[in-house]
C-alpha cells in the first residue's frame, strides 16, 4: 500500500522533524521582522536596506526562505492528502491531488527563486 509517495522526505518521522525545525526558524524570523517594526516605528529606506544588506541577516533570510519551502510543502501535503481523497472526490482524487501538489511545487519554486533574488540579488 503506497500511502506516502509525495511527502517531503520519504519518512513521516523525518517530515515531522523538518516541520518542527523549520517552524522554529520561521518563528525566529517572524519575531525578528516584528522586532524591526517595533524598534523602528519611523523606518527609513537607509535603515531598512541597511538591515537586509547585512550578511548575517541575508543568511537568516535565506534560511527562512528554505524553511518556508520545506514547511509549506509538508503542510500542503498534509492538507492535500487529508482533504483531497477518494472519500471526498471519488476516483478523480488522485488526479486532483497531483495537479494541486504540482501547483504547490510551482509556487514553492517561485518563492525560492524570488527569495534568492530579493536577498542576494543586489
Amino acid at each position, binding site marked *: *500500500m503506497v*500511502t*506516502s509517495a509525495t511527502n517531503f522526505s520519504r519518512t*513521516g518521522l523525518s517530515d515531522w522533524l523538518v516541520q*518542527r525545525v523549520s*517552524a*522554529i526558524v*520561521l*518563528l525566529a524570523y*517572524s519575531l525578528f521582522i516584528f522586532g524591526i*517594526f517595533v524598534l523602528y516605528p519611523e523606518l527609513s*529606506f537607509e535603515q*531598512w*536596506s541597511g538591515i*537586509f544588506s547585512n550578511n548575517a541577516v541575508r543568511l537568516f533570510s535565506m534560511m527562512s526562505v528554505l524553511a*518556508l519551502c520545506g514547511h*509549506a510543502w509538508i*503542510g*500542503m501535503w*498534509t*492538507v492535500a*492528502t*487529508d*482533504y483531497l*481523497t*477518494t*472519500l*471526498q472526490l471519488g476516483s478523480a482524487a488522485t488526479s486532483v491531488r497531483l495537479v494541486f501538489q504540482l501547483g*504547490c511545487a510551482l*509556487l514553492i519554486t*517561485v*518563492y525560492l527563486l*524570488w*527569495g534568492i*533574488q*530579493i536577498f542576494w540579488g*543586489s
Partner: protein
Amino acid sequence: MLASRLSKRLRGFERSSGVQKAGGNCRTTIYCRYCIARVKFYCIDGRSLIYFPPFVTLKLLINSISLIGVVRIWLPIGPNWRQVSAKRQHFTPSRHYERLNVKDTRPVNIDLTTIRFPLTAILSITHRITGVIIFIGVAILLYLLGLSLESEAGFAEAQQLLSSPLAKFVVWGIVSGLLYHLVAGTKHLVMDWGFGETLAGAAIGSRITLVISTLLIVIAGVWIW
C-alpha cells in the same frame, strides 16, 4: 507512540471488530474487556477515527471519564483496521444487507453540520486554514519586501501601496493568519515537549492559544491603522 496513546486513551478496551460499509464511511467498535461497555468509532476522512458521544453506553460514561468529549486519534498510515479478515467482513451487517439486496437503513450519524466540534478541533482546523492563507499571502509579502528593498523610489511606492485601506486590510489579514499560526504552532511545540498532552491540558492550551492570538491580532490591527 500513537499506538501507546491509543491504548492509554482506551485503557481496558480492546478493538474487536472493524466494519467497513461498502462505498461509505468506515466504523469500528471497541469493546471493554471486562464489562458490556462498547464504543463506536467512525472514520470520515480515511485517516482519523472520530468518536461520537451519543454512542457511548451509560456504563462507559461511568467507567471512563477520559473518553468524554471527542477523541480524535490519528493513525500513522491509513485506517489499518480496515483490513479486517475476509471471514469477518463476510459477516458484517453491511455485507449482510448487500447480500440480501436490502437497503441499509441503520442510522449513521455522520452529518458534520449537526456535530458541535470542541474548541481544540476548531483551533486545529484554523491552524490548517491559516497555513494555507499564509502560503498564498507570502507572495504579497515577498512582493512588498522586494519592492521596498529595490530602491528609495520602490520603498516610497511600497509605503504608498500600504496606505490604502484595502491593502491595510489584506496585510492585516495575512499578519493575523501568521500570528495565529505562530501561536498555535508554538502550542504544538510545547505539546511536543510533553506539556499539556492530556484532554484537560489540551483544552487549557487551546484557550490560551485563542486568548494570546486574539490579543496579538488586535494589537496588529491597531498598529497597522
